[in-house]
């Protein structure tokens, strides 16, 4: 590893010593917090975070917060862990909700159960949507607090629906309808496709939705087993491939996550599956009438949850932990969650946030803002296991291999399953 273990332990001991010595003269109780956070959707999100952090500092003059935008989810995890390993300060971060196992294995994070003290705090832990806690609760302990959370929703172009004689208020409810409508919406000259599901960046996430709709989940709750080669999962991948090859309502090959929004806004696809976190950006830029719907189901409706959780790092002083908790509570409080949801499209993380005046009014004026929340009842956890980076990449690769036509669904998924089993064997 980057630093020898013994050396790391020594460094930690020295740091702890210095920390305790140095905290004595610093009686003013000034605490400095560094947190990394990711962004994976469009829009000026750094500004929103900076504003919220600014507000927090105004209310809590003793705490200084450095919020560092570090790129996408992977970049941010890499940067946060790298900072910790090289002995730099970071007390908390917003990281991928599915990084929990990796962070636990690296012994980087602390369960919130160890930090909460009062009954009020415990009640706060229970105040979030249970569906959003799934990825963060492991072995009965809470490791992550939901913050920028999403589900996948379907954006559709109502003008295009009208144009081909479809009811713009009735988006497809199931796979068959999606194919049917997609065929009507697809123009033969390739200038408009029926539907696009992105398959770069977060292919496994989109696939989690298809699998769930087909009645399957991708992994066990303890993160030690994946179900890539289950028949229902294979079927789901076959369907994804069929959208392009058999039904011809989606372009062949992989579809880029990042440029898909642009494609939708340019009218190149009538429907797109994307994170609800993109909602405000789409709303601001769409030059046509668009709608947002829950994903169509097959055996059942469904989508994985997604997005980022707050984590507190282990290598912190009690004062820092306390300040970090203050910050996390502030950022996830109903009013802030409501503001965050309005400015981005991400979900309000607690039922209470949807009860705030601001979000109530917003949902009334712009009903799509509630779709992700309404879908939560059908949601499942996002793919997250031990060795999560590799295990996830195996699935991503299998999906892309099938979508580009270089492998058959069954063979690709069985291969991925076998390799994932090999990686996970030592954890069982």
């Amino acid at each position, binding site marked *: 590893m*980057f630093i020898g273990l013994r*050396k790391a332990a020594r460094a930690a001991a020295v740091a702890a010593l210095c920390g305790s010595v140095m905290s004595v003269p610093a009686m003013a109780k000034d605490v400095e917090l560094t947190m*990394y956070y990711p962004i994976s959707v469009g829009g000026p999100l*750094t500004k929103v975070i900076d504003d919220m952090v600014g507000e927090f500092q105004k209310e809590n003059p003793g705490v200084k917060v450095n919020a*560092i935008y570090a790129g996408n989810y992977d970049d941010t995890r890499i940067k946060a862990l790298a*900072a910790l390993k090289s*002995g*730099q300060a970071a007390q908390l971060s917003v990281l991928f909700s599915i990084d929990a196992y990796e962070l636990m294995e690296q012994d980087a994070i602390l369960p919130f159960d160890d930090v909460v003290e009062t009954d009020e705090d415990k009640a706060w832990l229970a105040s979030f949507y249970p569906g959003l806690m799934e990825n963060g609760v492991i072995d009965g302990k809470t490791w992550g607090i939901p913050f920028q959370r999403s589900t996948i929703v379907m954006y559709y172009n109502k003008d295009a629906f009208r144009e081909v004689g479809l009811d713009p208020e009735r988006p497809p409810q199931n796979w068959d309808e999606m194919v049917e409508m997609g065929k009507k919406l697809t123009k033969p000259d390739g200038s408009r496709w029926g539907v696009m599901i992105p398959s770069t960046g977060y292919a496994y996430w989109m696939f989690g939705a298809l699998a769930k709709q087909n009645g399957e989940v991708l992994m066990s709750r303890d993160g030690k087993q994946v179900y890539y080669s289950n028949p229902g999962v294979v079927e789901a991948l076959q369907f994804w491939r069929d959208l392009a090859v058999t039904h011809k309502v989606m372009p062949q090959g992989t579809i880029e*996550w990042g440029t898909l929004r642009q494609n939708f806004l340019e009218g190149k696809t009538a429907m797109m599956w994307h994170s609800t976190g993109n909602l405000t950006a789409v709303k601001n830029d769409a*030059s046509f009438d668009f709608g947002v719907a829950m994903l169509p189901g097959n055996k059942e409706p469904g989508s994985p949850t997604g997005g980022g959780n707050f984590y507190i790092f282990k290598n912190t002083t009690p004062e820092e932990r306390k300040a970090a908790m203050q910050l996390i509570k502030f950022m996830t409080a109903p009013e802030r969650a409501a503001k965050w949801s309005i400015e981005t499209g991400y979900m309000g993380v607690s039922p209470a946030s949807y009860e705030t005046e601001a979000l109530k009014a917003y949902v009334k004026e712009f009903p799509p803002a509630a779709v992700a929340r309404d879908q939560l009842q059908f949601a499942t956890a996002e793919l997250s296991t031990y060795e999560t980076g590799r295990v996830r990449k195996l699935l991503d690769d299998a999906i892309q291999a099938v979508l580009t036509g270089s492998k058959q669904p069954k063979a690709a998924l069985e291969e991925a399953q076998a390799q994932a089993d090999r990686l996970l064997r030592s954890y069982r």
Partner: protein
Amino acid sequence: MNASERFFRAVETTGAWLLALLWIAPLLYAFWAAFHPSEYAVRFVLTAPLTLDNFVRAWDFAPFARYFLNTFILVTSILAAQLVLCTLAAYAFARFEFPGREIAFLLVLVQLMIVPEILIVENYGTMARLGLVDSILGIGLPYMASAFAIFLLRQTFKTIPRELEEAARIEGCGRLGVLWRVYVPLSKPTYVAFGLVSVSHHWNNFLWPLIITNSVETRPLTVGLAIFGAPESGVDWSMISAGTLMAVAPLLLAFLIFQRQFVQSFMHAGLK
């Protein structure tokens, strides 16, 4: 010139110009997208209105001023260190007899092949042990002893007649005095050439800075630009183009103004 020659010349001229247009097409597009509202980023309508809004948005979106400062500190500190360290080393190789010189020179040349990019994994570990992760010094350190510079300067120093050195000696110059009074001034073109190559290389360098920096305070422009324009965050070409143009503007302007110098320098650096 006969007819067939004239024909060939016309074909060649056309070909050369087409290729040139192709070659600057990305830059032309960046100008188009940056100076027009984002609705026109993917649509080429001649009547599209002009705007500076994208530059304002990009400037507000990411701390470009800080990135500029970081890059500036980075390239100047690398260049300064390279000039000093490599001049001394090249002088040693060119004008001193010492045991192990040939082997040492070969070991220096190893870096021409095994460039720092290849060794990111271990160098990251070293930087972590030195506590230099996320520092500008950490970005620059692996590049400061440049085999290329040592090689280039050694070749240049070797062409300088020894008589000049002896004359300076007689006038009472020490060894370093000779280096400073004779070798350095006479090698000015090589220094300029290497300087330009080094600055443009490190202005544009990406992989190692990406790995070794964590925060806004150290990120150079390239890394900032990559995070700023990461496709995951939903590609907004107008703003990205504006950001890109801002990032390349200093180098591009310098290049346009001093283009003869640039080209000559690159040629000079390559000839040795």
